[in-house]
């Protein structure tokens, strides 16, 4: 910590607070902020933590563990497919593995990882001290953790879902999938979606209402834009899969006929509902990645982003168009040609905003002074891989071409190019970029380069030959193949590639472990970056910022650095968790909001929900039991506590202040 930062812990002249009289509220007292915002010690404190950086980091670490688990499943599957007729996995196990691989990567890795970063970084990027609903945040994490662990426990109990992450009826109906496996799918999916939904709601509320004064929407960092749009997409998309899952659960447990043709139902109804969610889901995974890229490109090109407005509009367009594509997953179900042409057009249309963003990033690099640190390397990897995935994406938007490659390894290649390229590469860039902020130490550049090249080469060796396998007629989700099919060579290459990817992952893990302890100390702003998170120490204190900044530029650190003086807000109470509330568009100051303190109620609520959801797999009796537990937890959660320091009611000076606000 430099001398300048040391000064920040002392009340600045004009930003003072009364240290001595406990009966009067205290303002801007940095030494008191620490007590107010810290989490109680001990195991109870650990379980009751609600601070956004704690919850965000838990999300990131948990999602990374699930990435490794999903990756291990993939490695075993690659081993099985390395040679014809191998018997490492039985058909039954293989089907559970590929189902769990898909569910893990989509629901337990990609979305929670992006949310973890969003929860960790967003309040720092917009200059506030926590998310709008800290307890909801903690609840979302516990729900996710319990759901994810339950899914992997099911694998060991041999009741893991085995009908694919897409889980089409009638295969997933009770006639063709008796037993608990599909019930695990329907309940766990619904459960985990709840986590994504609550995170989305509070990210929207936080982004709209808690930006630092002056950070109008047009000055908001591009990453925050990406998170805002992702969150809004989640709100509209996720209900599709929840409704579908509930219907399927009812079909299985209560003999309804939603997807049963003999009862007037239709298996295609599932596909419409599922892909209404499932296609936006792809962009829900991709858009935060685009946000990572924008942050990294700006900083490492050392210039303001070229085409900020174009990128924001592209993100918005992506969010909207993504809801008009779902039928392109159903081109082979016999949808009428006129309808499918519309979806072909929409699917090709979405290439335009993606293209515009890539062009803007290239223009930024071209017009800047790029420095090839590891985060920027991952941007290059992203461009290479994602462009290939985008091109094959335009191809599969064609109904007739899709009728050949749909459900083949061509699509396996395509989707990994898009998702690994669009999400995993940017996420690794984000690891290298924000690790110094989160941990306070730099990741090793040397290992970073190894990490990058192994992933890039390994990825392409694994997935590029799969395009060819698709043309040779290798369908997805086959556990074995005959030597005579001539698929051996490509599969062998792909398996070798998967080991290179695994080596890249190992290098990353080694890098993290080594750097966490012995990495070069980062300092506040090792990258000389533009955005607010680099204004505060690394790792940031419990309260994020000693003083809430006032923003007058899109690149606040770059523009204000010249003067060396930061404009800040004064008069925020330091004896309770107060944050500044600003208007949604212009971020004019509107008032103050007092956030909730740590509590065990989020955990209690998550446990109540778990009893209802997980119990439902075996008996519907558990649903009302869990509902009552959840209700009690919520009642305690929201019950106001009459403690002077407890927000948000009963403050002695409340009434006069209110009156003065009413008049202004």
């Amino acid at each position, binding site marked *: 910590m430099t001398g300048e930062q040391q*000064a*920040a812990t002392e009340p*600045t002249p*004009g*930003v003072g607070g009364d240290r001595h009289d406990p009966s009067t509220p205290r*303002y801007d007292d940095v030494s008191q902020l620490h007590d107010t915002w810290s989490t109680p010690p001990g195991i109870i404190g650990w379980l009751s933590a609600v601070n956004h950086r704690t919850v965000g980091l838990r999300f990131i670490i948990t999602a990374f563990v699930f990435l490794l688990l999903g990756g291990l499943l993939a490695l075993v599957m690659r081993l099985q497919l390395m040679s014809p007729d191998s018997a490492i996995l039985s058909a039954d196990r293989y089907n559970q593995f590929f189902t769990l691989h898909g569910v893990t990567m989509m629901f337990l890795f990609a979305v929670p990882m992006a949310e973890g970063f969003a929860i960790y970084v967003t309040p720092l990027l917009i200059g506030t001290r926590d998310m*709008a*609903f800290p307890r909801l945040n903690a609840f979302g994490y516990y729900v996710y953790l319990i759901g994810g662990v339950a899914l992997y426990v099911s694998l060991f109990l041999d009741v893991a879902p085995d009908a694919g992450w897409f889980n089409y009826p009638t295969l997933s109906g009770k006639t063709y999938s008796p037993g608990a496996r599909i019930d695990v799918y329907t309940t766990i999916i619904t459960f985990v979606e709840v986590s994504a*939904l609550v995170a989305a709601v509070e990210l929207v*509320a*936080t982004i*709209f*209402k*808690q930006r630092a004064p002056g950070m109008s929407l047009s000055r908001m960092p591009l990453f925050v834009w990406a998170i805002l749009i992702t969150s809004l997409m989640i*709100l*509209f998309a996720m*209900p599709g899969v929840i*409704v579908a899952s*509930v*219907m399927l659960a*009812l*079909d299985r447990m*209560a*003999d*309804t*006929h*939603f997807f049963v043709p003999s*009862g*007037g*139902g*239709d298996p295609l*109804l599932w596909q*419409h509902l599922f892909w*209404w969610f499932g296609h936006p889901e792809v962009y829900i995974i991709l858009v935060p990645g685009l946000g990572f890229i924008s942050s990294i490109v700006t900083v490492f090109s050392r210039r303001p982003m070229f085409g900020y407005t174009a990128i924001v509009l592209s993100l918005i367009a992506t969010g909207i168009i993504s809801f008009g594509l779902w039928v392109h997953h159903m081109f082979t179900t016999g949808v009428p040609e006129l309808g499918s042409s519309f979806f072909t057009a929409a699917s090709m249309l979405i290439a335009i905003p993606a293209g515009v963003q890539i062009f803007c990033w290239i223009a930024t690099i071209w017009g800047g002074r790029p420095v090839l640190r590891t985060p920027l390397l991952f941007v290059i990897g992203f461009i290479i891989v994602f462009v290939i995935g985008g091109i094959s994406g335009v191809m599969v938007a064609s109904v007739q071409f899709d009728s050949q490659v749909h459900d083949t390894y061509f699509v396996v290649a395509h989707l990994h190019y898009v998702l690994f390229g669009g999400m995993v590469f940017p996420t690794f860039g984000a690891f290298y970029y924000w690790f110094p902020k989160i941990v306070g130490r730099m990741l090793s550049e040397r290992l970073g380069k190894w990490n990058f090249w192994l992933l890039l080469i390994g990825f392409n060796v694994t997935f590029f030959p799969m395009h060819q396998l698709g043309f040779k007629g290798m369908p997805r989700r086959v556990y074995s193949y005959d030597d005579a099919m001539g698929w051996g060579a490509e599969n062998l290459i792909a398996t070798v590639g998967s080991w290179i990817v695994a080596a890249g992952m190992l290098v990353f893990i080694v890098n993290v472990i080594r750097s966490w302890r012995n990495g070069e100390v980062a300092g506040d702003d090792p990258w000389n970056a533009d955005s607010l998170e680099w*204004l505060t120490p690394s790792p940031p204190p419990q309260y994020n910022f*000693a*003083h809430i900044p006032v923003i007058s530029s899109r690149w606040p650190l770059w523009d204000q650095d010249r003067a*060396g*003086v*930061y*404009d*800040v*807000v*004064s*008069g925020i109470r330091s004896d309770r968790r107060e944050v500044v*509330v600003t208007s*949604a568009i212009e971020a004019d*100051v*509107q*008032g*103050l*909001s007092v956030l909730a303190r740590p509590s065990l109620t989020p955990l209690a609520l998550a446990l109540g929900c778990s009893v209802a959801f997980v119990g439902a797999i075996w008996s519907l009796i558990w649903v009302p039991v869990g509902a009552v537990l959840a*209700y009690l937890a919520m*009642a305690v959660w929201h*019950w*106001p506590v009459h403690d002077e320091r407890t927000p948000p009611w009963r403050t002695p000076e*409340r*009434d006069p*202040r*209110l009156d003065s606000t009413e008049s202004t």
Partner: protein
Amino acid sequence: MNVRAVLDVRTLSPYSYRNDGALWWGMMGMIVIESAVFAMLAASYFYLKTQSAEWPLGGYDAPKLLLPSINTGVLIASSLVMHWADKGVAKNDQRRLRVGMIVAALLAAMFLVLKYVEYSDVPYRWDTNAYGSIVWTIIGFHSVHVMVLLAKTMVVATLAMRGYFDPYRRLGVIINGMYWHFVVAVWIPLYVMLYWSPRW
């Protein structure tokens, strides 16, 4: 780091009960999610309808109109009463708040009773065919929402009985009311869909 205080917020309201605070956005988020869920259910209803040669499936008559129409009126009335109670606490009229909440809750309970009466008498069940499945699911899902309203209102009403709310501290009432109005508002298109659209 040198800082310069340019904006003093000491005199601002310590919490925002205006209807654009973070909590309002949070509640709107909840309402958007729930609306999307109801929209998905409605879309499924119409999807199944277009896939079927007859609707209702199985040759049943379109549902009777009288009881559900009265019941819709009951639910709308509960919303109006809730609004009246909310306005009461804004004027610090504690009695009006308490009476309003109890009457609104009774109306909602009456809605549930009438729904129960209505559906003990329909000739199809959820396991009869896809029509029965979607109708019972929508009715069940909406009724669960009304039950949640009652459960939530119990907590808020307990606080109201203790005189907890006043014109400055009524966020609990406002948020409870928002959700109440949503559950009532979402019923109206469902009512049109379930009871009138089979006749089209």
